[in-house]
């Protein structure tokens, strides 16, 4: 059980955290033919855009209502109206998804009310779905923005009552933002192996998996379609991945009576056994041979890796769900989490296997990392890793100095196996070779020795 503390500093130094609207926009990107919009000044969008482009190395559709000083004070209705009309005209998306920002929340724009007025005033806009979510920058973090956005989709898009009878082979997946497009591909494959058809909301594996398409599109290309989202009320079950998705799964259950299970993580042996058990229960199908084989491969990998991971002191800086997943997996291989820093509150934090979890920044992490064996955090951890001479394993977002950030897979038996190898390899690449000085005697012993010698001389003198 960890004690959860919040940093008491006035200045955050080297932020670990990213803002809610960015998390919400990332969720929007998992919807097909969608144009995400930040209702704020154009810098809000521009910074988020640059960050996502650097991470995914993909074109990112992300628009802005381009608020300025005057429009902020007078209210953002007109800018919202213009933005929606402009986007509908130029990009013809199925869905325009809007998140607020610190600026428009401070002013107190009623975006929901504005959208209602816009729908009334412009009946032609009815051909485009509009979804909005409140995400002030000065509350919460990336993960919270993602979860709120997905809940907003559930509120706005799920059809109730369902258009037809419950489909026993269809299940909903509500993935947390710590799952990469690669993770979602893997999860879909696992679920389908049980004869089930998953609807993933949102599905960034459709839009941000880094693929070539034959046409140019100003909106997202791939992701959850509106029809799929509507149909979620007819599913047999919902799997929520990560504690962050619990409120969303609850909202879905409330709206459509689809029961749900929260799987806090999908990296590690036990959580994947739990996933298999759950899928077996829902589908009535026994675990396919492929995954029995992969499980046994993971066992072997754990045996190989424990030599290198066991006993290591690791510090982790990541959002709550990712932090929990990494810390648990590493602890299960015998490592000790000597420092844990995160971005926002979560009921999960108390269960992180560390003495203390600090809601703080990378300066805090760097302090905790002194004398540790490995740092795990996003790419901004590089300078700290260099200063301390401790290897860095990059996790989360942004990863701007690595290729294939969106395609990394760390879930499932196979993903866990590869993850353990990657971490183990870092230790192999940074071995602590012994030198003649490794076992040099400490100063205390040497002083004791020197004092003894002097005493002996004095004693000898006395004898004379």
């Amino acid at each position: 059980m960890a004690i959860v503390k919040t940093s008491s500093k006035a200045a955050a130094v080297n932020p670990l955290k990213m803002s809610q609207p960015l998390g919400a926009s990332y969720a929007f990107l998992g919807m097909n033919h969608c144009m995400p919009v930040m209702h704020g000044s154009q810098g809000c969008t521009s910074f988020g855009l640059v960050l996502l482009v650097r991470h995914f190395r993909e074109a990112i559709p992300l628009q802005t209502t381009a608020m300025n000083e005057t429009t902020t004070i007078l209210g953002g209705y007109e800018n919202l109206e213009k933005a929606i009309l402009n986007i509908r005209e130029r990009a013809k998306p199925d869905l325009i998804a809007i998140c607020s920002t610190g600026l428009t929340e401070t002013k107190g724009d009623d975006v929901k009310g504005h959208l209602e007025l816009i729908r009334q005033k412009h009946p032609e806009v009815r051909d485009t779905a509009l979804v909005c979510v409140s995400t002030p920058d000065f509350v919460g973090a990336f993960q919270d923005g993602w979860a709120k956005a997905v809940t907003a989709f559930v509120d706005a898009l799920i059809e109730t009552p369902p258009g037809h009878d419950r489909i026993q082979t269809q299940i909903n997946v509500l993935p947390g933002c710590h799952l990469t497009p690669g993770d979602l591909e893997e999860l879909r494959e696992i679920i389908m192996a049980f004869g089930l058809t998953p609807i993933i909301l949102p599905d960034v594996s459709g839009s941000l998996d880094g693929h070539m398409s034959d046409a140019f599109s100003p909106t997202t290309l791939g992701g959850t379609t509106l029809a799929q989202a509507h149909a979620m009320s007819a599913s047999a079950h919902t799997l929520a991945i990560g504690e962050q998705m619990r409120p969303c799964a609850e909202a879905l259950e409330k709206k459509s009576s689809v029961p749900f299970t929260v799987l806090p993580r999908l990296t590690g042996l036990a959580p994947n056994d739990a996933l298999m058990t759950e899928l077996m229960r829902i589908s009535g199908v026994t675990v396919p041979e492929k995954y029995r084989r992969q499980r046994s491969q993971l066992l072997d990998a754990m045996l190989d890796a424990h030599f290198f991971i066991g006993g290591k002191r690791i510090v982790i800086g990541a959002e709550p769900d990712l932090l929990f997943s990494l810390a648990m997996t590493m602890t299960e291989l015998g490592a000790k989490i000597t420092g844990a820093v995160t971005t926002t509150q979560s009921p999960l934090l108390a269960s992180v296997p560390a003495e203390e979890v600090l809601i703080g920044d990378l300066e805090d992490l760097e302090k905790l990392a002194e004398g540790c064996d490995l740092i795990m955090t996003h790419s901004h951890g590089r300078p700290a890793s260099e200063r301390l001479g401790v290897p860095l394993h990059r996790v989360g977002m942004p990863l701007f100095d690595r290729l294939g950030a969106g395609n990394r897979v760390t879930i499932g038996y196979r993903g866990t196996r590869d993850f353990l190898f990657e971490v183990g390899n870092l230790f192999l690449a940074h071995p602590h070779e012994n030198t003649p000085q490794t076992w040099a005697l400490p100063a205390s012993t040497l002083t004791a020795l020197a004092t003894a010698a002097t005493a002996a001389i004095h004693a000898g003198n006395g004898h004379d």
Partner: protein
Amino acid sequence: MSTLTSKIQVVFEEPACGKNLSKSEKERKKGCTKQLAPGAAAGGCAFDGAKIALQPITDVAHLVHGPIACEGNSWDNRHALSSGSATYRTGFTTDINELDVVYGGEKRLYKAVKEIIEKYNPPAVFVYQTCVTALIGDDIEAVCKAAAKKFGKPVIPVNSPGFAGVKNLGNKLGGEALLDYVIGTQEPEYTTPYDINIIGEYNLSGELWQVKPLLDAMGVRVLACLSGDAKYREVAYSHRARAAMMVCSKAMINIARKMEERYQIPYFEGSFYGIGDMSDSLREIARLLVMRGAPDDILARTEKLIAAEEARAWASIEPYKARLKGKKVLLITGGVKSWSVVAALQEAGMEIVGTSVKKSTKEDKARIKEIMGDEAHMLDDMRPREMYQMLKDARADIMLSGGRSQFVALKAKMPWLDINQERHHAYAGYAGMVKLIEEIDKTISNPVWEQVRSKAPWE
């Protein structure tokens, strides 16, 4: 009128800006910020602009007063290099929360400055205003004044909240902060008749270092660069320079013009991009210094240097001519670069099938015509879809542009090269232009293009 509004008016009334001068009195009052179209806008905000302009000052702590988005989503995302301190790459922000929004964030800001000075002891702290803290009325000027007095260190307010306007306006507001609080506050140990300032150069990917050896060879000392690889004290004593060069078109024109007004430092506008332009800039620097009383032997020295370096550059480009002959280039960039690299590309045998003029001034356009003739394809506002089609139809062999349109080219399976601020290669000076040609050749001749364009066997 608030200080910010009056500051913006001051920046808008820029007598040295040709575009501004050609406007009517009424138009000029409206300012030069185009009304942004909601839902169809791209680009950074005024805060972004101010940060871009000032962050290259390396030994200063840059503290962003606002919610996490402004710094948390953007820190350390440019490649302005430093030859010394790395403090400028540390992300500092007050990361204000809901309570600060309700009760005001001034106390947190003051404490943040205190913490930073205690822990990092920088020669100065720059405090950046953002939208939310501006909206709730946090008076950063007052906090900075109090903190400076208390801690005995310059604490500089940079009042350029994002919603004030676009990036370019932010560049200028950042410049105003230097003029108001930094420039002229210290004295250099010594001066020489060869001291210059370089204004508007950010040392991205180390481009200043492609130029500095040339200046060294001329015997010219860069007293201060605003702001690439600069130290705080260099900016503070930059008012003792004999002459100045203004790079990057209009981004910091207010600094150049006001330093001329206040300290009689003459300046010219020049470019480090392109062989001819590089030479012209060196000549102009020498000429201005002589005009200010430097011994005129520098003129001959400069000519010798130019002759030697130009010959070396052209000789290095020669081997690429055969390989690049007839290759069609689409140039999507802004301002000066829309013409300054053209000569070198043409010299290497390439053909420019289009150049964007969206951010170019009237003079820029005149230069394009001069270099490329009347049939020059000036593209005003090319939408990504049109760019994609042009590349897909193979009306160009390579696109040179900023990161924003990178994927338009790559998804059309067309070679692309980054020539804007996010790039990792340095393209300034003679060495830079050779590097550019080399990179174009490397990109175009990569075997990957043939492979990605070939159909799958079942198609």
